[in-house]
């Protein structure tokens, strides 16, 4: 990609204060993200992946370094969490239109947008269902729809499929891949699954064990659209082995 980056992160460090000199979670992280790029941070648990996303989402101030968005100072964020994180007192429809409500969009407009998202994630007919009646995969689809409904500049995914079973999980990869192609969003995702990162991302950045540093930057040159069976090609296997070797 030759376009100008939309986001630059420079020399970012996060230290959580504790009794012996502070817990160094992230150390000197620098990277750039281009528009419509799908970036994946891959790392073992405890590598500060979630902390990185929280900084990017503006939920946490970095100890040093900076995060710079090109288009505006505070980008619109859509975030998908490890758990679907739905509000149990809102129906599927009302959960999805929440970000629009907060922006002050009129209810009629918000409903139309939310309905579009419901169709995009394949939940037609579940508009009025309560979260308690959804399966894990369906709930996470609602989470994705909610993260996209207000047309965010940046989509942040925090191990979104970590709590799903293996089969649902792989189905969701194909789904997310399709949704990403349809919406052309800039995505930053963190995961500890090598397959997940290779299947979805344009670039995989490997984080080390705490304190997290970027150890390896891999361009994933697998053509799109990626079908389910690309995971069994020799090239996929080669990339997977490369990543495996860099993670201790």
């Amino acid at each position, binding site marked *: 990609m030759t376009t100008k980056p939309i986001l630059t992160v420079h020399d970012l460090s996060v230290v959580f204060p504790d009794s012996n000199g502070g817990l160094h979670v992230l150390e000197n992280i620098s990277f750039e993200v281009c528009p419509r790029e799908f970036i994946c941070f891959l790392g073992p648990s405890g590598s500060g992946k979630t902390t990185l996303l*929280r900084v990017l*989402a*503006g*939920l946490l101030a970095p100890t040093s370094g900076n995060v710079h968005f090109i288009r505006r100072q*505070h980008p*619109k*964020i*859509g*975030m998908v*969490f490890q*758990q679907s*994180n739905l*509000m*149990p*007192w*809102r129906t599927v429809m009302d959960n999805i239109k*929440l*970000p629009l*409500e*907060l*922006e002050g969009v009129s209810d009629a407009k918000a409903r139309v947008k939310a309905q579009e998202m419901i169709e995009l994630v394949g939940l037609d007919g579940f508009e009025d269902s*309560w*979260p*308690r*009646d959804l399966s894990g995969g369906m709930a996470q689809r609602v989470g994705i729809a909610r993260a996209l409904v*207000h047309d965010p500049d940046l989509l*942040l995914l925090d191990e979104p499929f970590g709590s799903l079973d293996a089969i649902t999980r792989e189905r969701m990869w194909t789904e997310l891949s399709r949704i990403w192609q349809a919406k052309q969003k800039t995505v930053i995702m963190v995961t500890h699954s090598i397959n997940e990162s290779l299947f979805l991302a344009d670039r995989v950045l490997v984080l080390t064990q705490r304190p997290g540093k970027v150890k390896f930057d891999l361009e994933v040159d697998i053509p799109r659209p990626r079908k389910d069976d690309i995971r069994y090609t020799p090239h996929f296997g080669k990339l997977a082995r490369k990543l495996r070797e860099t993670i201790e």
Partner: protein
Amino acid sequence: MKTSFSRWLGLISVLLGIIAWELIVRVTDLPRFILPSPVDVWVRFLKSLADGSLLLHTGYTLLEITLGLFFGVISATIIGYFLAKSRSLEKILSPYLVASQAVPIVAIAPLLILWFGSGITSKVLICSLIVFFPVLVNTVVGVRAVPPVLYDLMRSVRATRWQILFKLELPASLPVLLGGLRIGATLSVIGAIVGELVDAKNGLGFLLKVGDFQYDTAMVFVAVFMLITLALMLYGIVTLLEKRFLRWQQPAS
């Protein structure tokens, strides 16, 4: 068949109770000022209804209860919210809160009436005080139980403080808040009566006392039943609120 029968069980139980009461009156042959029969009570009820005294005093008590509930719930919810948010505020206020609970309301009711007179103000105050604590505790519990990840969600889409309050904290703690209101509603009836028994010119407590002094025991019974009705009514209103606002909690049948 079985369900339609069990629906009537409550009513049947009440009817049996009344029949048992009537039987006891007939068998023991106690004087009416000791134990009036259900029929006596019913007649007394109709009489007090006809002369307007029952409605007047019931209305008076209901007004005290409603105002007491209103002020008690509002103040407890607001203070509870800030307590839930601030540990240091909790530390500062908790000695007073615990002390206020250790003193039975009956013991301070005479004081409040001495200070605020025998009119409605003192009764409303007593109601508010008795309602205050359970609602406060439930507010603190409810607000503290809001999942932190939902705060993350709200902040990631740049929700304002008010939006967080009305779209997250309020609905998330509503089940516990209504639980507090449920307890408070029945307690407020007790509060009003305690106040009226100490000193009052109006209200069901006043009616009760007058009935007692004049050996009009049937009147005492009427007042007691009116109190039960008021308490049940308030309880029913809270239950309706729960049905309306907590639909998402009820399992799909």
